[in-house]
């Protein structure tokens, strides 16, 4: 593998002590960690070969939103925009909201810096994820979102990481720390987009204190050449609720590890995800839900459509510890293959050490439903159009589950466009 560390170290800027010590620890961990190969079980179907090229530190860009091709959902709340990893004040917007504190690490005041130092990395297990260590090693300007105790954020917070095409393959990191304090409520949308073959190493951490409710979306809308290896780590305390929604279009190499720890009684997680691949794209979602305590629930649904010579990996692990009685956990992964050369490797893994639990899992790789196809054709819709409509519906069913209307409005036409579905109208206007 290419040297992923040096280009970023060369571009390093001075940091406060708490950040510098984090960097040094990360550097030591990265340098001592063994790089995964195809012989590593968790990396069996995903090769890191695409990272074997020289990388440069990403360069700052001053292009306008239009020049960048930046198209964002209209969420009406605060928005922080980073281009090539650099903050762009001109593209960002801060809507005052007494329920939240939203700062970049470099802007954190003393209290915030102390909270970041205390919580950052606290839910990421030590040596298990080398790319998390890499993220630590070059840690610069992350985002800290704090939702204050008992408060409800008025509007969604949007965090955008966009890459502009660079002359050489660029490398950059993304870091997000969300601290949802007791009985707080907020919506966060992470957005990755851009052009070119940059490599991004993303690492959001979500910490939900007792009774907190967080709705989180992570949209990977990068180019077909983009490289992304990253992970999402969340910890849920008593009665906390996390809705986490993941979308992946494209990417030459995308590997996302999602780890959710139920560490308080009665925590609930709804995890939805979708991947749409064509060409020679590759996406690998590894999810792991740890049920450590009783009365927690998980509803996990991932769906994918894989065509051309693209390949997808889904590995969904649900680990129910001996104390986690009265757990309810459901995991479903459904895939549609639209070409004979497309590939899906799906594996649900239930590890259950408690006896009083309700668990269900299913993974399928299938063709579109024949009876649905026939029904559409009896209504005059030609077979090829019907297949498009059904593919759209297969994925859109997950979008419809999402509560944030502005996000649905953003995704639906993009999905329709992706499938080439001739959907002439906005059904949300239909009842008017």
């Amino acid at each position: 593998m290419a040297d992923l560390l040096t280009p970023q170290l060369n571009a390093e800027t001075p940091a406060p002590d708490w950040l510098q010590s984090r960097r040094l620890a990360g550097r030591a961990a990265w340098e001592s960690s063994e790089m995964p190969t195809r012989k590593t079980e968790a990396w069996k179907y995903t090769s890191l070969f695409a990272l074997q090229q020289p990388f440069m530190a990403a360069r700052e860009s001053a292009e306008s939103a239009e020049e960048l091709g930046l198209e964002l959902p209209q969420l009406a709340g605060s928005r922080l925009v980073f281009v090539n990893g650099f903050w762009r004040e001109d593209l960002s917007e801060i809507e005052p909201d007494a329920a939240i504190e939203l700062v970049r690490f470099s802007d954190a005041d003393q209290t915030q810096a102390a909270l970041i130092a205390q919580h950052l990395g606290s839910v990421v297990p030590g040596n298990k994820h080398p790319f998390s260590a890499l993220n630590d090693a070059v840690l610069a300007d992350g985002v800290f979102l704090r939702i204050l105790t008992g408060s409800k954020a008025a509007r969604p917070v949007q965090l955008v990481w966009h890459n502009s095409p660079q002359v050489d393959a660029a490398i950059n990191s993304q870091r997000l720390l969300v601290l949802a304090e007791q009985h707080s409520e907020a919506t966060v949308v992470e957005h990755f987009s851009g052009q070119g073959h940059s490599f991004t190493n993303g690492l959001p951490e979500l910490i939900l204190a007792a009774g907190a409710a967080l709705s989180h979306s992570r949209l990977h809308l990068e180019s077909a050449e983009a490289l992304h290896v990253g992970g999402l780590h969340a910890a849920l305390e008593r009665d906390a609720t996390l809705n986490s929604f993941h979308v992946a279009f494209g990417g030459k190499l995308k590997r996302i590890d999602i780890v959710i720890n139920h560490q308080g009684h009665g925590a609930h997680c709804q995890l939805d995800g979708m991947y749409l691949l064509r060409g020679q794209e590759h996406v690998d979602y590894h999810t792991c839900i740890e049920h450590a305590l009783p009365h927690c629930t998980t509803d996990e649904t991932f769906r994918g459509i894989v065509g051309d010579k693209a390949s997808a990996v889904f590995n969904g692990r649900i680990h129910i510890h001996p104390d986690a009685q009265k757990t309810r956990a459901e995991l479903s992964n459904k895939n549609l293959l639209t070409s004979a050369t497309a590939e899906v490797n799906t594996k649900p893994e239930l590890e259950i050490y408690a006896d009083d639990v309700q668990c269900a899992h299913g993974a399928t790789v299938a063709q579109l439903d024949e009876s649905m196809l026939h029904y559409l054709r009896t209504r005059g819709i030609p077979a090829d159009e019907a297949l498009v409509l059904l593919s759209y519906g297969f994925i859109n069913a997950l979008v419809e589950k999402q509560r944030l209307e502005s996000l649905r409005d953003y995704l639906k036409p993009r999905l329709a466009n992706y499938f080439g579905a001739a959907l002439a109208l906005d059904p949300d206007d239909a009842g008017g």
Partner: protein
Amino acid sequence: MLSIKDLHAEVEGKNILKGLNLEIREGEVHAIMGPNGSGKSTLGHVLSGRPGYEITQGSVEFLGKDLLKLDTEERAHLGLFLAFQYPVEIPGVSNMEFLKASVDAVRESQGASAYDTVGFMRRAREACAAVDLDQAFLKRGVNEGFSGGEKKRNELMQMMLLEPRLCILDETDSGLDIDAMQVVASGVNAMRSESRSFLLVTHYQRLLDYIEPDFVHVLADGRIIRSGDTSLALELEAKGYSWLDDSEVA
């Protein structure tokens, strides 16, 4: 309009239709009644071109064309409509998206221009109101989570929007309460015209109290064994299907 001659069809190697003959002329309403397993639903599926139903003998002519040679969607373009006994749920595709795709496809095939969005939405809302369905159903996934009665009303709504020449209603009355049945019946009655025909497939005579057919046929063991007017349906209702077993089939 529809001429079925000596139709034999099988499903999974089992003969279901065994020499069915039926003539429907423009503007006529025919009812086909019969006991469970007589082949009633198979007839609808065969006419719609459902995969898995193999025609082994006979012919079907619809508006001068060899129906059995046409793809399912081409049959719809020609004006054939089947209201399903068990309408299919399609999560993720809204009813409105589906209806627009359907009406656009049929109109395009007939050389008519597509409705503009606003005009279409007005028509869809009118059709929704005509079958007594809340407008919210237009936004929901096709038949997704609809009750039995709501699914049947949704079928009727599609029928109104597509304005077919021949409407086949496959046990549309089953599972409906009296109110829903009256909605379906008044919808059908409003659509009756000199150029449009109906084939009502039903197990019970009840529907025929609300939609008066011109002809009633009795289907048993894959063939029409008796034809008559509404009095035949009443007689069946009074005496039961076993009456036919005794008098005709045995």
